[in-house]
């Protein structure tokens, strides 16, 4: 646990390399005297961005330039472009720019990368380290709070990868899960606790629910795969299918919690309502169910917290697909936070280790919040019957 936190906190920091960029009209291939937005949009930024990096060490022979380019993320060209689009008056001027450092430089800067191993086994060579040290002395390596970790989707490059897509995936699947499981579970619990006659069939339902609560989660994943995807042809890799699969899992948990809290409502309440002439249904709906709600809700939150951390069933229904867009609806492909942890932990790059730790911290924060919420609901609103 300690290790996760000590490794993870650095993922909330992002390393920038500061250099100078000259927005040279000729290199941008802009002809017009006062270029419009479209002209800037369509200009060629390759050379400008390239020059910005190579200007760090002008004496370097051209064949070795790649070593400098590798020190920033592969998206540096876009970053150069975005800065100009935001400030069109930079055109023709030399301005300082912050470029995202590559994950190797990032790790070196954070001290996670041993510098004393032989150069052959290192992803950062001696030359790059030398440039890094030079920049660091000049104060041109910046470390700032990593906003892009929360706002950008997954990426193959550790320095650009964020949790936005998986976070939205998690939110959508939990909402779908809640929408499916809560009403069904509460209604089922009311029936079983208040109306069900004592016979073989209701006994069977009861045994069934208790067993269902202990079925391994991966079996639910197989169910989602075999029924939801193969028979109903719902779209793969989406939070909709994920949410339904998770709701099947949380269903028994919520039913058990709701039944327990219905059972805890003392019979005197029911008898009083019946004595006032209320029908059975009115007694249940107006008195027993509202009184049992705190317990039911805290059980629901616990069930959802379990669903939040569930990974295996989501992997089976294809939520491991690499998604580099942020989903806007439940039927867009997405990952989820725990699956993101799995995906990143399978990646070889060193930069992903701290990302995984940071992702775990976000996930755990959520779980603790939900558990606290459940306990508060239970203690604040539950009536003590004496």
């Amino acid at each position, binding site marked *: 646990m300690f*290790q*996760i936190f000590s490794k993870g906190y650095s993922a909330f920091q992002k390393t920038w390399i500061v250099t100078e960029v000259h927005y040279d009209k000729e290199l941008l291939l802009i002809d017009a005297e006062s270029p419009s937005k479209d002209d800037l949009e369509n200009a060629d930024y390759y050379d400008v961005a390239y020059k910005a990096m190579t200007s760090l060490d002008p004496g370097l022979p051209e064949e070795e330039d790649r070593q400098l380019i590798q020190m920033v993320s592969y998206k540096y060209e876009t970053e150069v472009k975005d800065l100009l689009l935001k400030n069109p008056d930079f055109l023709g001027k030399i301005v300082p720019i912050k470029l995202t450092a590559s994950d190797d430089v990032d790790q070196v800067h954070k001290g996670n990368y041993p510098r004393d191993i032989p150069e052959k086994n290192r992803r950062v060579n001696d030359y790059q380290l030398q440039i890094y040290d030079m920049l660091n002395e000049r104060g041109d390596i910046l470390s700032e709070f990593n906003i892009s970790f929360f706002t950008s989707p997954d990426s193959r490059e550790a320095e650009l990868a964020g949790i936005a897509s998986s976070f939205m995936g998690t939110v959508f699947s939990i909402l779908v899960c809640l929408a499916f499981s809560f*009403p*069904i*579970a509460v*209604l*089922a*619990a*009311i*029936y*079983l606790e208040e*109306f*069900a006659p004592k016979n073989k069939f209701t006994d069977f*339902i009861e*045994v*069934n*629910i*208790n*067993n*269902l609560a*202990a*079925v*391994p*989660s*991966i*079996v*639910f994943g*197989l*169910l989602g*795969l*075999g*029924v939801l995807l193969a*028979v109903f042809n719902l779209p793969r890799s989406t939070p909709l299918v994920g949410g339904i699969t998770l709701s*099947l899992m949380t*269903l*028994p948990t919520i*039913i058990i919690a709701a039944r327990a809290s219905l059972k805890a409502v003392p019979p005197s309440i029911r008898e009083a309502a019946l004595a006032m002439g209320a*029908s059975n*249904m009115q007694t249940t709906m107006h008195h027993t169910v509202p009184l049992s709600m705190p317990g039911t809700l805290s059980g629901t939150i*616990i069930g959802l917290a*379990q669903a939040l*951390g569930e*990974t*295996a069933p989501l*992997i*089976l229904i294809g939520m*491991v697909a690499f998604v580099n867009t942020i989903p806007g609806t439940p039927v867009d492909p997405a990952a989820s936070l*725990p*699956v993101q*942890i*799995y995906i990143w*932990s*399978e990646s070889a790059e060193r930069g992903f*280790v701290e990302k*995984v730790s940071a992702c775990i911290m976000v*996930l*755990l924060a959520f*779980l*603790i919040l939900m*558990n606290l919420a459940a306990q508060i609901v239970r203690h604040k609103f539950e009536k003590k019957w004496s």
Partner: protein
Amino acid sequence: MNLILVTFIILLAFTSYYFGRKKALVIQSSQRLTALPKFYGYYLAAWCAAPALIIFALWSVFEPSIVKTFILQDYTDQNLTKNELQLIYTKVKALAAGTYTGNITNFLDESANKYIQLKGIANSAKVAIILAILILSLSFAYRSVQKNDRMREPVEIFLKWVLFVASLGAVLVTIGIVFSLLFEAIRFFQAVKIFDFIFGTHWYPAKTFVRDGQPDPELMKDAFGAVPLFAGTFFIAFIAMCVAIPIGLLSGIYLSEYAGRGVRKYAKPIIEILAGIPTVVYGFFAALTVGPFVKEIGNAMGLEVSAESALAAGAVMGVMIIPFISSLSDDVITAVPQNLRDGSYAMGATKSETVKKVIFPAALPGIVGSILLAVSRAVGETMIVVMASGLAANLTMNPLESTSTITAQIVVILIGDQQFGDPKTQSAFALGISLFIVTLFLNVIALSVVKKYREKYE
């Protein structure tokens, strides 16, 4: 289209609720009401929404297969197998949706046109039928409102049925599990003999992958032997139990018998939160920290240790299960009646004698039940094994080597794109059903033991 229809039905139901209530107030001026005015509203709303929605659901379920039979009627004279027909149907659908990228034959084109036509007919028929049903059921309901029939009873009976159907949901899930697993597993056992599956000692499904045509039956025979997986699963679960039972049990006893109020107050919620940590987190911990650590220690002692040893996965799984056993056994021990303790103290026994000789034996059945539940969790645990234990199925009893489990293999087989109809994919369902049977067996025993135990002291 569907969304508009459903919203329309629901909106209509809401308006008819208000309409019904208003109507009741009108009736009230001339004769005595049979129920509260809102029941008139509920009555109308239920009659409005329920029949239409039921028909709508049935229609949506059956429409695709009916359309499919109509389309494939044209192909019956061509003597095609089921899979080929399925392929043709997929092509036709893609063509109709405009996403097909292959060469288009006349025949396909014709079918696609027919498909679009059929879909159009089906859609308009659906709307017409549902509107007709809405009008019929609403007018029926309105007549009985006008006649001032009894309103409360039908509404309550309807509600009771809704509750009953909801409670069938859980049963449906079980049936769904059993059938979806059985369906694929049976097809798997048509390709691979069940005997080879249960008693074979080589698990290597990748071997059967053939790009075109059928895989070699001789190869199939040797590739799907599940014994290494069963052995690996129980071996890792055994290691986990060796870690979890002693620690979990002792902490359960401490919490229930020795801990003061203050400790209990804080320890319980913390254990609850610990039990809620996602297994993928434990898996990451096992793969990144415990695995290399075990390897280093082993190497220092001169042993050959794989980085993905069964020991590391099992140990971390044990840690994961500790809170589970601890809180279950805490509950069980707390449920032992106080008079047993009082009796023991009255005979002059010390606290530890009471715990050892009176309370522990009394709670034993419950403890056994909770341990069985824990075993079933360990058997079904997936992520830790996938991340920390090996993926190659070795038949070994050496905790320092890597082994694989049922759950890990299911994930390995099904990760990425699957093709239904491939024996490799089906084997995952066969594994799933064996896992389901094993855990179900453990759960049923555990639950009945715990239940009997509870009844004994209540």
